[in-house]
């Protein structure tokens, strides 16, 4: 191989596109040709600079990913289902929470099978069970985010620290944002425990009283726990086991585990 031949294939060598034999020939040439070694080093350095320069100068703007997600939803969803499902889901969450379908008192969370059965039947009859199943999703694809407003606190630092220390396994914060649906504002916090996702939602309560009791709404595929405090309804929604989901609600309510 001579220097001219080397020049012809040096780029393909850097791209890892040469046959093994050609690679060997090129390396043998480099062993005794200082000029080509230098030229190859420059070519390699130039390629790195090109990559870095292009990558540094071609980032989308900060809000683009969020806009794209909502565009995908907008364009990839049949028109009729766009508002119906969220409406049903939100209605479901609120009705389930506010009506207090199933009540646990204090630290002892015993459940009666008949109350649960009543609840499940009600959910099935209203079609809410299916909607809630869809609602679990990834917990991340909220279409109503306030991108600009700083998120209001869903749980305070003390409660969050208690959650982290009391929860069996590790809890990791995925995201925190505010969202809006039909004029109602929600604060939404998403946590991850292994493969499981936990959503904590807070919204203004319909009821004036602080019941301080946890309402648990177990469905086939997700658990919903709700309580009211300081004029707000707090929902804990997850695909955890019911006891774990309740434990999270309990820690947020009392600031400690049992």
């Amino acid at each position: 191989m001579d220097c001219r031949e080397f020049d012809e294939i040096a780029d393909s060598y850097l791209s890892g596109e040469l046959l093994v034999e050609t690679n060997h020939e090129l390396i043998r040439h480099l062993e005794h040709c200082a000029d080509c070694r230098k030229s190859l080093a420059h070519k390699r350095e130039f390629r790195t600079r090109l990559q870095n320069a292009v990558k540094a100068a071609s980032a989308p703007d900060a809000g683009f990913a969020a806009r794209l997600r909502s565009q995908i939803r907008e364009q990839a969803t049949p028109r009729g289902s766009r508002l119906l499902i969220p409406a049903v889901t939100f209605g479901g969450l609120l009705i389930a929470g506010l009506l207090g379908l199933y009540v646990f008192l204090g630290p002892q969370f015993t459940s009666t099978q008949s109350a649960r059965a009543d609840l499940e039947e009600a959910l099935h009859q209203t079609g809410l069970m299916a909607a809630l199943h869809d609602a679990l999703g990834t917990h991340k694809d909220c279409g109503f985010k306030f991108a600009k407003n700083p998120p209001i606190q869903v749980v305070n630092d003390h409660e969050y620290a208690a959650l982290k220390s009391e929860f069996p396994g590790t809890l990791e914060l995925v995201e925190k944002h505010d969202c809006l649906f039909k004029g109602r504002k929600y604060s939404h916090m998403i946590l991850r425990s292994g493969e499981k996702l936990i959503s904590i939602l807070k919204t203004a309560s319909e009821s004036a009283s602080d019941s301080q009791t946890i309402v648990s709404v177990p469905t086939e595929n997700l658990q919903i726990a709700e309580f009211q405090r300081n004029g707000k309804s707090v929902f804990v929604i997850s695909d955890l086991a019911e006891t774990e989901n309740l434990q999270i609600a309990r820690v947020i309510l009392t600031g400690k585990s049992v």
Partner: protein
Amino acid sequence: MFGFFRPKRDETDNFELEAMPLLKDVYRVALWLSRDVSEAEDLTQETFVQAFKSFHRYEKGTNCKAWLMTILHHTNAKRLRKLSRLRIVEDPDEQIASTIAFEPPAPQNITDDDILLALGNLPEQFRHVVVMADVEDFAYKEVADILGIPIGTVMSRLHRGRKLLRIELASHEAAVRFKSRKISAKG
């Protein structure tokens, strides 16, 4: 609120896991294809909407980036047809090849802005393959599959594209050297 817009939970999750992290890469290539921020956003958006709609056809575990780039390429071709901007050149490779007589060295005394400017000035066919192979690190065969052209064409376009880029930068480098000599002579 949650993922309730989507028909299937698993598919939505997988799309979020596999395709969405590649947003920056798709946008970057779109930007270098169109040389315009708002066109790049439109191209990226259309690519991802298409990808989401046909995500069931994506084979899990295969190269998702290459799959998205193929959709981007089709989307871009459609855009160009719409704008009637698709210039039909008989053999651009050969035309430009005849103008390149020497192998320029890899430039050294240049800034990142010089590099970006030179890349932007490359004719589209060359810019596209250089970005795909040298920036995005696709193999020649992958570039050929994505662009739907023979691998030989990819290789010749790359060869000439890289050469043109170096010529442009070498002449810029020479101009800068000349200027700085003039300044020091004055001083």
